[in-house]
């Protein structure tokens, strides 16, 4: 509904859109063609195929095209699925929230207390990890957290422990730590972008009018940097729901996420079941995005 309101509001004052519709298709639409084809071929069609599969069933190694809701029923009734789904949700949420809580003060520090030169340097450092591959970065963490990793070596050296311990790797905490490392830059960059545009004399004004620092943050700064926070939330939370490699490499069995489950099902030729789970997650994301889209103003974040 928010979409409808917004578009209506934009149309009204100029009436330009109404005029346009009587002309030939605008060049803008031609510009959409390549991406439209790409989305069609690599996203919409495969997604439709997947949705179809989710309503079929397997017998041995054959797909039987009988319409059934069994796959969905199983997903919602089998405890094993529910546990993994819940874990995926919680890990994603935890990583997202921790990333925001860490990134916000850091971005604030950059904007408020460092000169433009240092800001640039820090930002380069923040995006530096993107220059190496995702896989390498996860492996790097394995060699930090592992049996003979950096932490164990250090503890051995300091005689805190006598033998390497295994608590650092192959559990959900390892997953959270590695994800935090992987996703933190997104949070820092989006929040930095919104803080950087903020006129901080408003904070002086708020303090002047009797607001405590916390009140000034809640009532003045946060509402005006909300776009950055919500964008960061979406940029982290949603891709995390589909993460596969990291849980597989550092999660052990207790850290597996929903995508690992789907892959296992596909490997075991359980296409309909895997498709059903995937579709449920996709639907969840779509619903979430529709709910959040009122706040998601990426264009606003990069304006000016």
């Amino acid at each position: 509904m928010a979409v409808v309101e917004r578009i209506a509001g934009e149309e009204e004052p100029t009436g330009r859109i109404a005029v346009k519709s009587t002309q030939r298709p605008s060049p803008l639409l031609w510009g959409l063609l390549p991406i439209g084809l790409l989305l069609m071929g690599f996203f919409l069609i495969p997604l439709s195929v997947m949705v179809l599969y989710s309503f079929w069933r397997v017998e041995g190694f054959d797909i039987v095209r009988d319409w059934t809701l069994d796959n969905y029923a199983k997903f919602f009734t089998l405890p094993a699925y529910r546990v993994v789904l819940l874990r995926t949700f919680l890990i994603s949420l935890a990583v997202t929230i921790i990333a925001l809580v860490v990134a916000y003060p850091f971005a604030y520090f950059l904007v408020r207390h460092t000169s433009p030169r240092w800001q640039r340097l820090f930002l380069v450092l923040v995006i530096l990890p993107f220059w190496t591959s995702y896989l390498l970065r996860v492996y790097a963490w394995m060699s930090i957290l592992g049996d003979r990793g950096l932490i164990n070596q250090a503890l051995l050296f300091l005689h805190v422990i006598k033998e390497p311990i295994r608590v650092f790797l192959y559990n959900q905490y390892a997953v959270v730590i590695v994800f935090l490392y992987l996703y933190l830059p997104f949070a820092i960059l989006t929040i930095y972008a919104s803080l950087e545009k903020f006129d901080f004399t408003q904070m002086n004004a708020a303090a002047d009018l009797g607001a405590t620092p916390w009140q000034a943050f809640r009532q003045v700064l946060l509402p005006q940097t909300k776009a950055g926070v919500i964008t960061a939330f979406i940029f982290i939370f949603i891709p995390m729901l589909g993460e596969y490699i990291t849980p597989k490499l550092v999660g052990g069995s207790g850290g597996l996420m929903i995508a690992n489950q789907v892959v296992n099902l596909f490997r075991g030729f359980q296409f309909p079941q895997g498709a059903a789970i995937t579709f449920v997650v996709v639907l969840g994301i779509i619903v979430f995005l529709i709910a959040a889209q009122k706040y998601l103003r990426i264009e606003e974040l990069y304006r000016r």
Partner: protein
Amino acid sequence: MADDRGSDFYAVELVGVSKHFGNVVALDNVSLQIKQGEFYTLLGPSGCGKTTTLNIIGGFIPVTSGTVRINGRVVQDDPPYRRNVNTVFQNYALFPHMTVAQNIGFGPRMKKVPQDEIERRVERMLQLISLPGFGDRKPAQLSGGQQQRVALARALINEPDVLLLDEPLGALDLKIRKQLQGELRNIQRKVGITFVYVTHDQEEAMVLSDRIAVMDRGKVVQEGTPTSIYHHPANRFVANFIGESNFFNGKVMDVAADEVTVEVPGFRQPIRVLAKRPVTRGEMVTVMVRPECMVLIPDPSTAERRDLVNMVEGVIAKAAFLGMYTQIVVELTNGTTALIHQPGGGELESAPQSLLGQSVTLGWRVQDGRLLVD
């Protein structure tokens, strides 16, 4: 000391306040005394430390040394929200995500004033600033002058002991600025709150202020009423900054009880000026004369009778009729130029150009000159 506030105390008092930013000395041993209910203006060129002074009174930056008192209470270690002072910022700093009414009601809301009382006070403020019915707009939907008034209302609603205004009209064009100057002065009289006002526009300072502090390079060089500063500038900087002036540099020839005689190289006769400050014979001094105090003398032989004891000769180089007066530039015999303002009218008004090239004598009275030591 028994009472914490009230008229026994200055509204604001700075005692020996200095502020350093690294090795930049923004304020150097500044002392000010601002009275209750006064419209007090900090006037000075860009970078002289006006904003820094306001920020120190408002509590936004700490002092390097010195004491700040508000209503007799020492406040330099208090954060802004514990001082009963409000500010109208140079760029207004309105909250763009709030409506006008929410902006104005922000202060009371922070102090947990009941909602219905906030609404009543906001309504009163909108009346005061002549913007009734604008409460539901966002700041972006207002003109610059309207935003300025909202910023004023947002500060005044808190009924502060002192209101600080940092060039509040600086961003507006001349016409609206003139109009708002009048409104500001009226509002200040109506609410009776002490205003500390910053501007680098000397005319604005003269129109608005009860008293002015003229600042230069981090120091207060003079404090006084607009008329006293205009007529008795403390030094050459003030004389130049406020109004227009003619300066004559020379050596003290003679010091009498109430009069000093100054010899200016290139002038036929020495200049006589009242001895308002101690000087010694042989000292180099400057005599300042305002353009409107100098008169063109048609017949030097009658000049003495009009008390025009000081006379210099020259040739008219420029003349322009400016409405209220005619502005004339005279090249003097010592090679400098003098600016004079003759009240308009008579033959001057009809043909100022015809004066060009004429040899003239300029005269002024003893009491029109000012003796400046630097």
